[in-house]
């Protein structure tokens, strides 16, 4: 049998574009981990919050989902900063499991409040360009996926600029490197942590808005799935490393799409998990660096 290059390229491009959104979700998680050393279990539910924000603005005001980013991102940032100041800041001295459990509780609270407000049936936003595609030779790209990829690139480029070329970014990197040292040179690390958690939540919300023309929003089930995907992405790349999270996201997207089309689509979600387990088990020190205590 001849190898089918067209369908291979098609799968590759789909995988890369989906992977871009995974990367956007993963970057927020990994940024929060890098600075605050907490694993945020509610990250996937922040994505769902973004989806519902777009649904709400669309049904009330008829806004295009991409327009609702203007509202969703600042709101997400403020909500995240507030959550950090009110809840998570109490746990900075506690063992690492505590923050995991509290964010798990937060995930359950967000999911169930959404369930009480919007009901259990899946919601989506219909846009006129939902099924349009752009063709490049024999390979076609979905407009929505392209827009998602574009949004991801813009947001990640913005994040990169902030982190590397501003005073705030320098303070964030200093806090991630060495909290005590950062405090000694006069950085208000508590404030930095609130900002970082805000950025993390804003990134998750953005991913949710970008995904809504593509996926249905369901209140309780999908949050855990996104959280899991975000973990897979960050562990593939290495927790706390933003560049690696992008690579991890792209890898996860490609592995899922390739696995689904060349092996069996029944286990689409399992391929990412298997790669996740393999990396976790075979290369823990290389990927986690100093966070794992070696015996």
């Amino acid at each position, binding site marked *: 049998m001849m190898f089918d290059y067209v369908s291979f390229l098609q799968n590759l491009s789909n995988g890369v574009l989906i992977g871009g959104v995974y990367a956007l979700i993963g970057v927020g998680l990994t940024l929060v981990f890098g600075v605050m050393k907490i*694993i945020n279990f509610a990250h996937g539910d922040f994505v769902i919050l973004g989806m519902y924000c777009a649904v709400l603005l669309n049904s009330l005001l008829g806004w295009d989902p991409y327009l609702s980013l203007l509202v969703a991102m600042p709101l997400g940032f403020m909500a995240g900063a507030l959550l950090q100041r009110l*809840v998570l800041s*109490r*746990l900075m001295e*506690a063992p*690492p*499991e*505590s923050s*995991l*459990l*509290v964010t*798990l*509780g*937060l*995930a*359950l*609270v967000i*999911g*169930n*409040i959404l*369930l*009480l407000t919007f009901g*259990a049936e899946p919601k989506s936003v219909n846009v006129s360009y939902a099924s349009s595609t752009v063709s490049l030779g024999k390979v076609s790209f979905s407009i929505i996926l392209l827009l998602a990829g574009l949004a991801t690139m813009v947001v990640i480029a913005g994040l990169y600029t902030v982190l590397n070329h501003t005073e705030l970014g320098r303070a964030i990197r200093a806090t991630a490197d060495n909290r005590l040292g950062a405090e000694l040179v006069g950085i208000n690390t508590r404030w930095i942590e609130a900002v970082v958690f805000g950025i993390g939540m804003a990134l998750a919300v953005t991913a949710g808005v970008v995904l809504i023309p593509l996926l249905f929003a369901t209140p*309780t089930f999908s949050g*855990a799935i996104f959280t*899991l995907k975000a*973990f*897979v992405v960050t*562990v593939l790349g290495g927790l706390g490393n933003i560049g690696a999270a992008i690579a991890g996201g792209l890898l996860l997207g490609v592995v899922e799409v390739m696995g689904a089309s060349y092996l069996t689509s*029944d*286990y689409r*979600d*399992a391929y990412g*998990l*298997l790669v*996740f*387990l393999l990396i*976790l*088990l075979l290369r*823990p020190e290389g990927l*986690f660096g100093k966070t*794992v*205590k070696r*015996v």
Partner: protein
Amino acid sequence: MKKHYVIFAGLVLMGIFYPRMFPGYLSVAITLLLYAGWATSWDILGGWAGQVSLGHASFVGLGAYFVAVGTSHHEIAPWWAVLMALFAASLVAYLWGRLTFKLKGPYFTLSTIAIAEIFRLVAINEGWLTGGATGVFIMTLPEPFGLDLFSRQVNYYLALAFAAITVLVVMLISRSKFGYQLRAVREDEDSAMASGINPTTVKLKAFMLSGALTALGGGIYAIFLSFIEPHIIFYLLLSVQIALTAIIGGRGTIWGPCIGALLVVGSGEIFRTTFAEANMLIYGLLIMVVVIFMPRGIVGEPARYLIRRVYAKRAQS
């Protein structure tokens, strides 16, 4: 320690007479007892050995599927199916632990979620083995000693026996050499190793015991429901519920998981009409409050206070 056995005997006695006093509330009591048993089993690994697992639904699923598939597809009596499930669960726990116990803290927790998800996908997709996504019905069950295994009364006593067995096992462990080894490993693996304990062996034993007991409860759960679905029984939320029940009550305490079960199942019942399907809201709120304000759990905090007072008095005299 004696007082724990007295409380235990008192509770079992109350449990035996409960169906006569409240015959209308049997289903709630069965759920309560199952959660108490599962949380107590979880606590052997999660509390006493300090390895937080969010994958225990896999063991519930193993137990439930052995009983359901065994009785409805292969005509194996449920008690043999449960026995097979216990062996299978221990084996799975052994391999699972071998694979992942080198991971520490949150990384171990993440790996348990991943493995449990893979189990769920297998249960959904391998229809020839599990009946697939539609689930399995238990139509007929044998009648040992003329007992109807479908009746709520019998289910209740099975669940009571399950909860009692798990609590008894934990009570025996808590004062045994194994129990002290578990606590040593939980507090500091390096120091435990320095005093001649092999942490991996100890954790493996705890995981196997914990998994097998959870599977026992899973088998009883299958008989109680008489219809099982992979989406529910292997689902992450069930793992989360089991773990949170134990943590809310108090990790590494004898009665903590039971108190936790009483609290979450009880409040779930009270707010059933208010929250309808959003019943996990209670778990979320409770776990946040407990972790922030009483990190040792509802039983753990006062117990620690009492112990410290006893030591303070001893130091004075």
